[in-house]
Protein backbone atom coordinates (compact mmCIF):
# COMPACT_ATOMS: atom_id res chain seq x y z
CA UNK A 1 0.00 0.00 0.00
CA UNK A 2 2.90 2.32 0.73
CA UNK A 3 4.26 1.55 -2.74
CA UNK A 4 0.89 2.53 -4.14
CA UNK A 5 1.22 5.96 -2.60
CA UNK A 6 4.86 6.47 -3.55
CA UNK A 7 4.78 5.37 -7.18
CA UNK A 8 1.51 4.66 -8.91
CA UNK A 9 3.03 2.42 -11.57
CA UNK A 10 4.90 0.32 -9.06
CA UNK A 11 1.72 0.20 -7.01
CA UNK A 12 -0.29 -1.12 -9.93
CA UNK A 13 2.40 -3.67 -10.75
CA UNK A 14 2.41 -4.74 -7.11
CA UNK A 15 -1.37 -4.99 -7.14
CA UNK A 16 -1.41 -7.14 -10.25
CA UNK A 17 1.22 -9.47 -8.87
CA UNK A 18 -1.54 -11.12 -6.82
CA UNK A 19 -3.22 -13.84 -8.88
CA UNK A 20 -6.65 -13.27 -7.31
CA UNK A 21 -6.56 -9.63 -8.40
CA UNK A 22 -5.50 -10.55 -11.93
CA UNK A 23 -8.49 -12.88 -12.15
CA UNK A 24 -10.76 -10.22 -10.68
CA UNK A 25 -9.56 -7.69 -13.26
CA UNK A 26 -9.91 -10.19 -16.10
CA UNK A 27 -13.47 -11.16 -15.17
CA UNK A 28 -14.38 -7.62 -14.12
CA UNK A 29 -13.27 -6.12 -17.44
CA UNK A 30 -15.42 -8.51 -19.42
CA UNK A 31 -18.44 -8.11 -17.16
CA UNK A 32 -18.14 -4.33 -17.22
CA UNK A 33 -18.07 -4.12 -21.02
CA UNK A 34 -20.97 -6.55 -21.40
CA UNK A 35 -23.15 -4.86 -18.78
CA UNK A 36 -22.30 -1.39 -20.05
CA UNK A 37 -23.39 -2.29 -23.59
CA UNK A 38 -26.47 -4.28 -22.57
CA UNK A 39 -27.35 -1.71 -19.92
CA UNK A 40 -27.46 1.06 -22.51
CA UNK A 41 -30.33 -0.65 -24.30
CA UNK A 42 -32.05 -1.59 -21.05
CA UNK A 43 -32.05 2.03 -19.93
CA UNK A 44 -33.08 3.27 -23.37
CA UNK A 45 -36.06 0.91 -23.41
CA UNK A 46 -36.86 1.64 -19.76
CA UNK A 47 -36.58 -2.00 -18.83
CA UNK A 48 -34.39 -1.49 -15.77
CA UNK A 49 -37.08 -3.17 -13.68
CA UNK A 50 -36.35 -6.32 -15.68
CA UNK A 51 -32.76 -6.15 -14.48
CA UNK A 52 -34.05 -5.71 -10.95
CA UNK A 53 -36.22 -8.80 -11.31
CA UNK A 54 -33.34 -10.79 -12.81
CA UNK A 55 -31.09 -9.92 -9.90
CA UNK A 56 -33.51 -11.67 -7.57
CA UNK A 57 -34.01 -14.61 -9.85
CA UNK A 58 -30.23 -15.03 -10.01
CA UNK A 59 -30.13 -15.50 -6.26
CA UNK A 60 -32.82 -18.16 -6.28
CA UNK A 61 -31.26 -19.97 -9.23
CA UNK A 62 -27.88 -20.16 -7.56
CA UNK A 63 -29.30 -21.27 -4.22
CA UNK A 64 -31.58 -23.84 -5.84
CA UNK A 65 -28.57 -25.36 -7.61
CA UNK A 66 -26.62 -25.43 -4.35
CA UNK A 67 -29.54 -26.97 -2.45
CA UNK A 68 -29.83 -29.63 -5.16
CA UNK A 69 -26.09 -30.24 -4.90
CA UNK A 70 -25.16 -29.24 -8.45
CA UNK A 71 -22.87 -26.52 -9.74
CA UNK A 72 -23.98 -23.04 -8.73
CA UNK A 73 -23.39 -21.64 -12.23
CA UNK A 74 -25.83 -24.05 -13.87
CA UNK A 75 -28.61 -22.75 -11.66
CA UNK A 76 -27.48 -19.16 -12.10
CA UNK A 77 -27.41 -19.14 -15.90
CA UNK A 78 -30.43 -21.41 -16.19
CA UNK A 79 -32.66 -19.29 -13.95
CA UNK A 80 -31.57 -15.96 -15.44
CA UNK A 81 -31.99 -16.99 -19.06
CA UNK A 82 -35.30 -18.76 -18.45
CA UNK A 83 -36.76 -15.82 -16.56
CA UNK A 84 -35.50 -13.31 -19.12
CA UNK A 85 -37.18 -15.23 -21.92
CA UNK A 86 -40.34 -15.47 -19.81
CA UNK A 87 -40.44 -11.69 -19.43
CA UNK A 88 -39.88 -11.32 -23.16
CA UNK A 89 -42.78 -13.68 -23.78
CA UNK A 90 -45.00 -11.72 -21.39
CA UNK A 91 -45.15 -9.04 -24.00
CA UNK A 92 -44.44 -5.45 -24.78
CA UNK A 93 -42.46 -3.02 -22.72
CA UNK A 94 -45.34 -1.04 -21.27
CA UNK A 95 -45.01 -0.39 -17.55
CA UNK A 96 -48.31 -2.19 -17.06
CA UNK A 97 -46.35 -5.41 -16.91
CA UNK A 98 -44.40 -4.18 -13.93
CA UNK A 99 -46.97 -5.51 -11.50
CA UNK A 100 -46.91 -8.99 -13.03
CA UNK A 101 -43.13 -9.05 -13.15
CA UNK A 102 -43.05 -7.80 -9.57
CA UNK A 103 -45.37 -10.49 -8.28
CA UNK A 104 -43.44 -13.24 -10.00
CA UNK A 105 -40.02 -12.13 -8.84
CA UNK A 106 -41.21 -11.46 -5.28
CA UNK A 107 -42.41 -15.04 -5.15
CA UNK A 108 -39.21 -16.37 -6.71
CA UNK A 109 -37.21 -14.50 -4.11
CA UNK A 110 -39.31 -16.06 -1.37
CA UNK A 111 -38.45 -19.39 -2.94
CA UNK A 112 -34.80 -18.34 -2.72
CA UNK A 113 -35.17 -17.87 1.04
CA UNK A 114 -36.57 -21.38 1.16
CA UNK A 115 -33.61 -22.85 -0.75
CA UNK A 116 -31.23 -20.87 1.43
CA UNK A 117 -32.73 -22.52 4.50
CA UNK A 118 -32.50 -25.96 2.93
CA UNK A 119 -28.89 -25.36 1.97
CA UNK A 120 -27.94 -23.88 5.34
CA UNK A 121 -29.58 -26.59 7.38
CA UNK A 122 -28.06 -29.34 5.26
CA UNK A 123 -24.54 -28.03 6.00
CA UNK A 124 -22.81 -27.69 9.28
CA UNK A 125 -21.36 -24.42 10.45
CA UNK A 126 -21.71 -21.10 8.68
CA UNK A 127 -20.60 -22.22 5.20
CA UNK A 128 -24.17 -22.17 3.89
CA UNK A 129 -24.87 -18.70 5.23
CA UNK A 130 -21.66 -17.30 3.76
CA UNK A 131 -22.45 -18.75 0.35
CA UNK A 132 -25.90 -17.19 0.37
CA UNK A 133 -24.46 -13.82 1.28
CA UNK A 134 -21.77 -14.21 -1.40
CA UNK A 135 -24.40 -14.80 -4.05
CA UNK A 136 -26.31 -11.73 -2.93
CA UNK A 137 -23.37 -9.37 -2.62
CA UNK A 138 -20.68 -10.86 -4.81
CA UNK A 139 -17.22 -12.24 -4.24
CA UNK A 140 -15.11 -11.09 -7.16
CA UNK A 141 -11.88 -11.60 -5.21
CA UNK A 142 -12.80 -15.24 -4.76
CA UNK A 143 -12.95 -16.14 -8.45
CA UNK A 144 -10.79 -19.02 -9.58
CA UNK A 145 -8.67 -18.84 -12.70
CA UNK A 146 -10.97 -21.00 -14.79
CA UNK A 147 -14.06 -19.15 -13.57
CA UNK A 148 -12.49 -15.82 -14.53
CA UNK A 149 -11.54 -17.11 -17.98
CA UNK A 150 -15.01 -18.53 -18.63
CA UNK A 151 -16.47 -15.26 -17.50
CA UNK A 152 -14.27 -13.20 -19.78
CA UNK A 153 -15.01 -15.37 -22.83
CA UNK A 154 -18.78 -15.32 -22.22
CA UNK A 155 -18.73 -11.55 -21.70
CA UNK A 156 -16.84 -11.13 -24.93
CA UNK A 157 -19.48 -13.15 -26.76
CA UNK A 158 -22.28 -11.04 -25.22
CA UNK A 159 -20.47 -7.85 -26.20
CA UNK A 160 -19.96 -9.04 -29.78
CA UNK A 161 -23.63 -10.02 -30.02
CA UNK A 162 -24.80 -6.63 -28.73
CA UNK A 163 -22.52 -4.75 -31.10
CA UNK A 164 -23.71 -6.93 -33.98
CA UNK A 165 -27.35 -6.26 -33.16
CA UNK A 166 -26.81 -2.62 -32.21
CA UNK A 167 -28.25 -0.93 -35.32
CA UNK A 168 -31.55 -2.81 -35.63
CA UNK A 169 -31.89 -2.91 -31.86
CA UNK A 170 -31.52 0.84 -31.65
CA UNK A 171 -34.11 1.33 -34.38
CA UNK A 172 -36.54 -1.04 -32.65
CA UNK A 173 -35.95 0.58 -29.27
CA UNK A 174 -36.53 4.14 -30.43
CA UNK A 175 -39.57 3.53 -32.62
CA UNK A 176 -40.82 -0.04 -32.71
CA UNK A 177 -43.76 0.74 -34.98
CA UNK A 178 -41.70 2.28 -37.76
CA UNK A 179 -39.02 -0.36 -37.31
CA UNK A 180 -41.61 -3.11 -37.59
CA UNK A 181 -43.02 -1.52 -40.72
CA UNK A 182 -39.54 -1.40 -42.23
CA UNK A 183 -39.18 -5.14 -41.68
CA UNK A 184 -37.03 -5.12 -38.56
CA UNK A 185 -37.92 -8.22 -36.50
CA UNK A 186 -38.89 -6.20 -33.40
CA UNK A 187 -40.16 -9.10 -31.35
CA UNK A 188 -37.21 -11.36 -32.08
CA UNK A 189 -34.87 -8.53 -31.16
CA UNK A 190 -36.68 -8.13 -27.85
CA UNK A 191 -36.10 -11.81 -27.13
CA UNK A 192 -32.46 -11.58 -28.16
CA UNK A 193 -31.83 -8.56 -25.95
CA UNK A 194 -33.45 -10.15 -22.91
CA UNK A 195 -31.50 -13.34 -23.50
CA UNK A 196 -28.30 -11.29 -23.46
CA UNK A 197 -29.50 -9.47 -20.33
CA UNK A 198 -30.06 -12.83 -18.67
CA UNK A 199 -26.53 -13.98 -19.47
CA UNK A 200 -25.10 -10.65 -18.32
CA UNK A 201 -27.07 -10.80 -15.07
CA UNK A 202 -25.70 -14.25 -14.35
CA UNK A 203 -22.18 -13.00 -15.09
CA UNK A 204 -22.49 -9.87 -13.01
CA UNK A 205 -23.89 -11.83 -10.08
CA UNK A 206 -20.52 -13.54 -9.76
CA UNK A 207 -18.72 -10.20 -9.66
CA UNK A 208 -20.82 -7.66 -7.80
CA UNK A 209 -23.52 -9.98 -6.51
CA UNK A 210 -27.14 -10.48 -7.40
CA UNK A 211 -28.39 -7.44 -5.53
CA UNK A 212 -25.90 -4.97 -6.97
CA UNK A 213 -25.89 -5.85 -10.66
CA UNK A 214 -28.37 -3.04 -11.26
CA UNK A 215 -25.54 -0.68 -10.42
CA UNK A 216 -23.56 -1.91 -13.43
CA UNK A 217 -26.60 -2.05 -15.71
CA UNK A 218 -28.31 1.24 -14.87
CA UNK A 219 -25.76 3.74 -13.60
CA UNK A 220 -23.19 3.78 -16.46
CA UNK A 221 -25.94 3.83 -19.09
CA UNK A 222 -27.84 6.55 -17.27
CA UNK A 223 -24.69 8.66 -17.09
CA UNK A 224 -23.90 8.09 -20.76
CA UNK A 225 -27.45 9.09 -21.75
CA UNK A 226 -26.96 12.27 -19.78
CA UNK A 227 -23.65 13.16 -21.38
CA UNK A 228 -24.46 12.65 -25.05
CA UNK A 229 -27.52 12.45 -27.25
CA UNK A 230 -25.74 10.47 -29.97
CA UNK A 231 -26.77 6.83 -29.67
CA UNK A 232 -23.59 5.00 -30.62
CA UNK A 233 -21.39 7.39 -28.69
CA UNK A 234 -23.63 6.84 -25.67
CA UNK A 235 -23.38 3.08 -26.07
CA UNK A 236 -19.59 3.08 -26.11
CA UNK A 237 -19.47 5.68 -23.36
CA UNK A 238 -21.69 3.47 -21.21
CA UNK A 239 -19.27 0.55 -21.63
CA UNK A 240 -16.33 2.83 -20.88
CA UNK A 241 -17.94 4.17 -17.70
CA UNK A 242 -18.74 0.65 -16.53
CA UNK A 243 -15.15 -0.36 -17.19
CA UNK A 244 -13.81 2.65 -15.31
CA UNK A 245 -16.13 1.87 -12.39
CA UNK A 246 -14.97 -1.72 -12.14
CA UNK A 247 -11.27 -0.86 -12.41
CA UNK A 248 -11.53 1.97 -9.90
CA UNK A 249 -13.65 -0.14 -7.59
CA UNK A 250 -11.25 -3.06 -7.63
CA UNK A 251 -8.25 -0.81 -7.00
CA UNK A 252 -10.02 0.96 -4.13
CA UNK A 253 -11.02 -2.32 -2.55
CA UNK A 254 -7.42 -3.49 -2.87
CA UNK A 255 -6.03 -0.31 -1.34
CA UNK A 256 -8.52 -0.34 1.55
CA UNK A 257 -9.29 -3.95 2.49
CA UNK A 258 -12.15 -2.91 4.77
CA UNK A 259 -14.17 -1.79 1.74
CA UNK A 260 -15.95 -4.63 -0.05
CA UNK A 261 -15.18 -4.60 -3.82
CA UNK A 262 -18.90 -4.71 -4.70
CA UNK A 263 -19.48 -1.49 -2.78
CA UNK A 264 -16.48 0.23 -4.33
CA UNK A 265 -17.61 -0.66 -7.87
CA UNK A 266 -21.22 0.41 -7.41
CA UNK A 267 -20.24 3.54 -5.49
CA UNK A 268 -17.90 4.61 -8.31
CA UNK A 269 -20.61 4.07 -10.91
CA UNK A 270 -23.09 6.03 -8.82
CA UNK A 271 -20.60 8.85 -8.31
CA UNK A 272 -20.02 9.08 -12.07
CA UNK A 273 -23.76 9.21 -12.69
CA UNK A 274 -24.18 11.91 -10.07
CA UNK A 275 -21.30 13.83 -11.64
CA UNK A 276 -22.91 13.51 -15.08
CA UNK A 277 -26.19 14.89 -13.73
CA UNK A 278 -24.45 17.84 -12.11
CA UNK A 279 -22.34 18.58 -15.20
CA UNK A 280 -25.29 18.54 -17.57
CA UNK A 281 -27.40 20.63 -15.18
CA UNK A 282 -24.66 23.26 -14.99
CA UNK A 283 -24.08 23.11 -18.74
CA UNK A 284 -27.76 23.67 -19.39
CA UNK A 285 -27.90 26.70 -17.14
CA UNK A 286 -24.75 28.04 -18.81
CA UNK A 287 -26.00 27.44 -22.35
CA UNK A 288 -29.38 28.99 -21.65
CA UNK A 289 -27.72 32.10 -20.30
CA UNK A 290 -25.64 32.37 -23.49
CA UNK A 291 -28.37 31.55 -25.96
CA UNK A 292 -31.02 33.73 -24.42
CA UNK A 293 -29.46 36.87 -23.03
CA UNK A 294 -31.63 38.87 -20.73
CA UNK A 295 -33.65 41.39 -22.73
CA UNK A 296 -32.14 44.76 -22.12
CA UNK A 297 -34.75 47.42 -21.62
CA UNK A 298 -34.09 50.21 -24.06
Amino acid sequence: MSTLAANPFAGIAHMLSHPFLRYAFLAGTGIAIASGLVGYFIVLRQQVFTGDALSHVAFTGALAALAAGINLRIGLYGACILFALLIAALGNRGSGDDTTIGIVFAWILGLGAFFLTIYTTSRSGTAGGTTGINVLFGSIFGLSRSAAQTNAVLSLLVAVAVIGLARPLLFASIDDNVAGARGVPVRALGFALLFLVGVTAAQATQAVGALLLLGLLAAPAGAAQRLTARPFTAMWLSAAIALLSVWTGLSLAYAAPKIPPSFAIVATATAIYLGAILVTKCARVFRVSIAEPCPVPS
Partner: protein
Amino acid sequence: MLGTGLTWNLRSDVHQLFEFHFMVNAFRAGTIVAVLAGAIGWYMVLRRQAFAGHTLAVVAFPGAAAAIWLGISVNFGYFGACIAAAVVIAAVPRANAGQTYSEESAVIGTVQAFALACGVLFVSLYGGFLNSLTGLLFGTFLGISNRQVVTLLVVAAAVLVVLAAVARPLFFATVDSDVAQARGVPVRLLSVLFLVLLGCAAAEVSQITGVLLVFALLVMPAASAQQLTARPAVGFAITIALAVGITWTGLAVAYFSVYPVGFFVTTIGMACYLLSVAIRYSAAYVTRRAPRRAVA
Protein backbone atom coordinates in the same frame (compact mmCIF):
# COMPACT_ATOMS: atom_id res chain seq x y z
CA MET B 1 -40.22 -25.85 15.65
CA LEU B 2 -40.98 -24.54 19.11
CA GLY B 3 -44.18 -26.12 20.36
CA THR B 4 -45.05 -29.78 20.50
CA GLY B 5 -45.81 -29.68 16.78
CA LEU B 6 -48.80 -29.59 14.52
CA THR B 7 -51.73 -31.85 15.44
CA TRP B 8 -55.13 -32.55 13.95
CA ASN B 9 -56.78 -30.76 16.82
CA LEU B 10 -57.26 -27.22 15.51
CA ARG B 11 -58.03 -25.81 18.95
CA SER B 12 -54.83 -27.08 20.46
CA ASP B 13 -52.93 -25.76 17.44
CA VAL B 14 -54.31 -22.27 17.95
CA HIS B 15 -53.65 -22.53 21.66
CA GLN B 16 -50.07 -23.54 20.90
CA LEU B 17 -49.71 -20.66 18.49
CA PHE B 18 -50.50 -18.09 21.16
CA GLU B 19 -48.74 -19.91 23.97
CA PHE B 20 -45.71 -17.66 23.88
CA HIS B 21 -45.77 -13.92 24.24
CA PHE B 22 -43.41 -13.35 21.30
CA MET B 23 -45.89 -15.05 19.02
CA VAL B 24 -48.74 -12.85 20.26
CA ASN B 25 -46.54 -9.85 19.52
CA ALA B 26 -45.69 -11.26 16.11
CA PHE B 27 -49.39 -11.44 15.27
CA ARG B 28 -50.02 -7.92 16.58
CA ALA B 29 -47.13 -6.51 14.55
CA GLY B 30 -48.08 -8.61 11.53
CA THR B 31 -51.63 -7.27 11.57
CA ILE B 32 -50.52 -3.63 11.80
CA VAL B 33 -48.01 -4.10 9.04
CA ALA B 34 -50.45 -5.96 6.79
CA VAL B 35 -53.13 -3.27 7.02
CA LEU B 36 -50.57 -0.59 6.21
CA ALA B 37 -48.99 -2.55 3.36
CA GLY B 38 -52.40 -3.31 1.89
CA ALA B 39 -53.53 0.32 1.95
CA ILE B 40 -50.33 1.79 0.50
CA GLY B 41 -49.84 -1.13 -1.87
CA TRP B 42 -53.27 -0.59 -3.40
CA TYR B 43 -52.27 2.91 -4.45
CA MET B 44 -48.81 1.73 -5.52
CA VAL B 45 -50.21 -0.84 -7.94
CA LEU B 46 -52.75 1.64 -9.24
CA ARG B 47 -50.01 4.25 -9.78
CA ARG B 48 -47.76 1.67 -11.45
CA GLN B 49 -44.88 2.50 -9.14
CA ALA B 50 -43.81 -1.07 -8.49
CA PHE B 51 -40.17 -0.30 -9.23
CA ALA B 52 -40.09 2.70 -6.89
CA GLY B 53 -41.87 0.69 -4.22
CA HIS B 54 -39.41 -2.14 -4.51
CA THR B 55 -36.46 0.23 -4.31
CA LEU B 56 -37.84 1.95 -1.20
CA ALA B 57 -38.38 -1.44 0.38
CA VAL B 58 -34.81 -2.49 -0.29
CA VAL B 59 -33.37 0.78 1.03
CA ALA B 60 -34.42 -0.27 4.52
CA PHE B 61 -31.48 -2.68 4.49
CA PRO B 62 -28.63 -0.11 4.48
CA GLY B 63 -30.63 1.94 6.98
CA ALA B 64 -30.86 -0.92 9.42
CA ALA B 65 -27.27 -2.00 8.79
CA ALA B 66 -26.00 1.54 9.40
CA ALA B 67 -28.02 1.82 12.60
CA ILE B 68 -26.63 -1.46 13.90
CA TRP B 69 -23.10 -0.43 12.96
CA LEU B 70 -23.45 2.96 14.68
CA GLY B 71 -25.24 1.40 17.64
CA ILE B 72 -28.34 3.58 17.40
CA SER B 73 -31.97 2.47 17.36
CA VAL B 74 -32.75 0.39 14.29
CA ASN B 75 -36.00 2.31 13.86
CA PHE B 76 -34.08 5.48 13.01
CA GLY B 77 -32.17 3.56 10.39
CA TYR B 78 -35.24 2.05 8.77
CA PHE B 79 -37.29 5.23 8.62
CA GLY B 80 -34.42 7.62 7.91
CA ALA B 81 -33.14 5.63 4.93
CA CYS B 82 -36.57 4.98 3.43
CA ILE B 83 -37.73 8.58 3.68
CA ALA B 84 -34.43 9.88 2.27
CA ALA B 85 -34.68 7.53 -0.71
CA ALA B 86 -38.30 8.55 -1.25
CA VAL B 87 -37.23 12.19 -1.53
CA VAL B 88 -34.45 11.33 -4.02
CA ILE B 89 -36.82 9.34 -6.23
CA ALA B 90 -39.48 12.03 -5.98
CA ALA B 91 -36.99 14.57 -7.34
CA VAL B 92 -36.97 12.77 -10.70
CA PRO B 93 -39.89 13.55 -12.97
CA ARG B 94 -42.12 10.58 -13.69
CA ALA B 95 -42.09 8.83 -17.04
CA ASN B 96 -45.03 9.66 -19.27
CA ALA B 97 -46.51 7.29 -21.78
CA GLY B 98 -45.36 8.12 -25.28
CA GLN B 99 -42.17 9.77 -24.16
CA THR B 100 -39.20 8.28 -25.97
CA TYR B 101 -36.70 8.43 -23.14
CA SER B 102 -37.13 9.01 -19.45
CA GLU B 103 -34.45 8.90 -16.85
CA GLU B 104 -36.80 7.63 -14.14
CA SER B 105 -35.94 3.95 -14.29
CA ALA B 106 -32.19 4.54 -14.56
CA VAL B 107 -32.22 6.75 -11.47
CA ILE B 108 -34.36 4.37 -9.45
CA GLY B 109 -32.13 1.45 -10.41
CA THR B 110 -29.02 3.37 -9.43
CA VAL B 111 -30.51 4.44 -6.10
CA GLN B 112 -31.37 0.83 -5.35
CA ALA B 113 -27.98 -0.58 -6.26
CA PHE B 114 -26.14 2.16 -4.38
CA ALA B 115 -28.31 1.69 -1.30
CA LEU B 116 -27.68 -2.04 -1.26
CA ALA B 117 -23.98 -1.45 -1.81
CA CYS B 118 -23.95 0.86 1.22
CA GLY B 119 -25.66 -1.91 3.15
CA VAL B 120 -22.84 -4.28 2.22
CA LEU B 121 -20.30 -1.69 3.31
CA PHE B 122 -21.95 -1.17 6.70
CA VAL B 123 -22.21 -4.89 7.29
CA SER B 124 -18.55 -5.27 6.41
CA LEU B 125 -17.55 -2.38 8.67
CA TYR B 126 -19.56 -3.79 11.55
CA GLY B 127 -18.15 -7.26 10.98
CA GLY B 128 -19.78 -10.60 11.59
CA PHE B 129 -23.46 -10.63 12.29
CA LEU B 130 -24.21 -13.09 9.58
CA ASN B 131 -27.20 -14.75 11.24
CA SER B 132 -29.04 -11.53 11.88
CA LEU B 133 -28.11 -10.43 8.35
CA THR B 134 -30.19 -13.27 6.94
CA GLY B 135 -32.97 -12.24 9.32
CA LEU B 136 -32.67 -8.65 8.12
CA LEU B 137 -32.97 -9.75 4.51
CA PHE B 138 -35.55 -12.50 4.73
CA GLY B 139 -37.50 -11.64 7.82
CA THR B 140 -37.84 -12.85 11.33
CA PHE B 141 -40.81 -12.78 13.64
CA LEU B 142 -38.91 -13.74 16.74
CA GLY B 143 -38.27 -11.26 19.50
CA ILE B 144 -40.63 -8.42 18.64
CA SER B 145 -40.91 -6.39 21.83
CA ASN B 146 -43.97 -4.59 23.17
CA ARG B 147 -42.22 -1.29 22.52
CA GLN B 148 -41.66 -2.22 18.90
CA VAL B 149 -45.34 -3.04 18.50
CA VAL B 150 -46.25 0.36 19.92
CA THR B 151 -43.83 2.11 17.54
CA LEU B 152 -45.25 0.19 14.58
CA LEU B 153 -48.78 1.11 15.65
CA VAL B 154 -48.02 4.82 16.07
CA VAL B 155 -46.27 5.14 12.71
CA ALA B 156 -48.90 3.08 10.91
CA ALA B 157 -51.67 5.20 12.41
CA ALA B 158 -49.91 8.40 11.34
CA VAL B 159 -49.37 7.15 7.78
CA LEU B 160 -52.96 5.94 7.48
CA VAL B 161 -54.34 9.25 8.79
CA VAL B 162 -52.34 11.18 6.20
CA LEU B 163 -53.37 8.72 3.50
CA ALA B 164 -57.02 9.06 4.50
CA ALA B 165 -56.73 12.84 4.36
CA VAL B 166 -55.40 12.83 0.79
CA ALA B 167 -57.19 9.68 -0.36
CA ARG B 168 -59.62 11.33 -2.76
CA PRO B 169 -57.30 13.84 -4.48
CA LEU B 170 -54.58 11.18 -4.63
CA PHE B 171 -56.97 8.80 -6.35
CA PHE B 172 -57.99 11.53 -8.78
CA ALA B 173 -54.35 12.40 -9.51
CA THR B 174 -53.56 8.72 -10.01
CA VAL B 175 -56.38 7.93 -12.38
CA ASP B 176 -56.05 11.03 -14.55
CA SER B 177 -53.22 13.32 -13.60
CA ASP B 178 -53.77 15.81 -16.45
CA VAL B 179 -57.42 16.45 -15.63
CA ALA B 180 -56.62 16.54 -11.92
CA GLN B 181 -53.93 19.13 -12.55
CA ALA B 182 -56.33 21.21 -14.59
CA ARG B 183 -58.83 21.05 -11.75
CA GLY B 184 -56.25 22.48 -9.39
CA VAL B 185 -55.15 19.29 -7.60
CA PRO B 186 -51.48 19.63 -6.56
CA VAL B 187 -50.40 16.52 -8.51
CA ARG B 188 -46.66 16.93 -8.03
CA LEU B 189 -46.94 17.52 -4.30
CA LEU B 190 -49.20 14.50 -3.91
CA SER B 191 -46.71 12.40 -5.81
CA VAL B 192 -43.91 13.37 -3.42
CA LEU B 193 -46.15 12.84 -0.41
CA PHE B 194 -47.17 9.42 -1.63
CA LEU B 195 -43.55 8.33 -2.08
CA VAL B 196 -42.76 9.44 1.48
CA LEU B 197 -45.76 7.46 2.77
CA LEU B 198 -44.60 4.50 0.69
CA GLY B 199 -41.15 4.84 2.26
CA CYS B 200 -42.61 4.83 5.78
CA ALA B 201 -44.73 1.80 4.97
CA ALA B 202 -41.74 -0.03 3.49
CA ALA B 203 -39.71 0.73 6.61
CA GLU B 204 -42.47 -0.72 8.80
CA VAL B 205 -43.13 -3.81 6.77
CA SER B 206 -39.46 -4.70 6.34
CA GLN B 207 -39.18 -5.25 10.09
CA ILE B 208 -41.44 -8.29 9.76
CA THR B 209 -40.98 -9.73 6.29
CA GLY B 210 -37.34 -8.76 5.85
CA VAL B 211 -36.23 -6.09 3.39
CA LEU B 212 -36.18 -8.36 0.36
CA LEU B 213 -39.77 -9.50 0.76
CA VAL B 214 -41.59 -6.29 1.70
CA PHE B 215 -42.47 -5.92 -1.89
CA ALA B 216 -44.52 -9.12 -1.83
CA LEU B 217 -46.87 -7.78 0.83
CA LEU B 218 -47.16 -4.46 -0.99
CA VAL B 219 -47.88 -5.79 -4.45
CA MET B 220 -49.57 -9.17 -4.12
CA PRO B 221 -52.79 -8.36 -2.21
CA ALA B 222 -53.37 -5.21 -4.24
CA ALA B 223 -52.79 -6.90 -7.58
CA SER B 224 -55.11 -9.76 -6.60
CA ALA B 225 -57.86 -7.35 -5.56
CA GLN B 226 -57.56 -5.41 -8.79
CA GLN B 227 -58.07 -8.63 -10.68
CA LEU B 228 -61.29 -9.26 -8.78
CA THR B 229 -63.02 -5.91 -8.91
CA ALA B 230 -62.83 -2.58 -10.70
CA ARG B 231 -64.60 -0.69 -7.93
CA PRO B 232 -62.11 1.29 -5.83
CA ALA B 233 -63.72 0.97 -2.39
CA VAL B 234 -64.42 -2.75 -2.72
CA GLY B 235 -60.94 -3.35 -4.10
CA PHE B 236 -59.40 -1.43 -1.23
CA ALA B 237 -61.28 -3.52 1.34
CA ILE B 238 -60.35 -6.79 -0.39
CA THR B 239 -56.70 -5.71 -0.51
CA ILE B 240 -56.52 -5.13 3.22
CA ALA B 241 -58.40 -8.33 4.02
CA LEU B 242 -56.06 -10.32 1.78
CA ALA B 243 -52.95 -8.70 3.26
CA VAL B 244 -54.03 -9.53 6.80
CA GLY B 245 -55.07 -13.05 5.81
CA ILE B 246 -51.78 -13.72 4.02
CA THR B 247 -49.75 -12.45 6.96
CA TRP B 248 -51.68 -14.44 9.56
CA THR B 249 -51.50 -17.65 7.58
CA GLY B 250 -47.82 -17.08 6.84
CA LEU B 251 -46.97 -16.50 10.49
CA ALA B 252 -48.99 -19.50 11.64
CA VAL B 253 -47.40 -21.85 9.11
CA ALA B 254 -43.91 -20.48 9.77
CA TYR B 255 -44.37 -21.14 13.49
CA PHE B 256 -44.76 -24.83 12.88
CA SER B 257 -41.95 -25.17 10.34
CA VAL B 258 -38.25 -24.48 9.99
CA TYR B 259 -38.52 -22.36 6.88
CA PRO B 260 -38.50 -18.54 6.96
CA VAL B 261 -41.75 -16.60 7.25
CA GLY B 262 -40.98 -14.68 4.05
CA PHE B 263 -41.17 -17.84 1.99
CA PHE B 264 -44.67 -18.63 3.25
CA VAL B 265 -45.92 -15.07 2.91
CA THR B 266 -44.76 -14.83 -0.72
CA THR B 267 -46.04 -18.28 -1.63
CA ILE B 268 -49.49 -17.70 -0.12
CA GLY B 269 -49.59 -14.29 -1.81
CA MET B 270 -48.69 -15.84 -5.14
CA ALA B 271 -51.42 -18.45 -4.66
CA CYS B 272 -53.95 -15.68 -3.94
CA TYR B 273 -52.94 -13.85 -7.08
CA LEU B 274 -53.19 -16.92 -9.30
CA LEU B 275 -56.53 -17.78 -7.74
CA SER B 276 -57.89 -14.29 -8.40
CA VAL B 277 -56.70 -14.41 -12.01
CA ALA B 278 -58.45 -17.76 -12.37
CA ILE B 279 -61.62 -16.34 -10.80
CA ARG B 280 -61.61 -13.39 -13.17
CA TYR B 281 -61.20 -15.56 -16.23
CA SER B 282 -63.81 -18.09 -15.15
CA ALA B 283 -66.26 -15.30 -14.28
CA ALA B 284 -65.73 -13.84 -17.72
CA TYR B 285 -66.28 -17.29 -19.20
CA VAL B 286 -69.48 -17.85 -17.24
CA THR B 287 -70.96 -14.55 -18.40
CA ARG B 288 -70.25 -15.62 -21.98
CA ARG B 289 -67.77 -12.91 -22.60
CA ALA B 290 -64.33 -13.66 -23.92
CA PRO B 291 -61.82 -12.56 -21.27
CA ARG B 292 -59.73 -10.76 -23.88
CA ARG B 293 -62.67 -8.61 -24.85
CA ALA B 294 -63.39 -7.82 -21.22
CA VAL B 295 -59.96 -6.25 -20.96
CA ALA B 296 -60.22 -4.32 -24.20
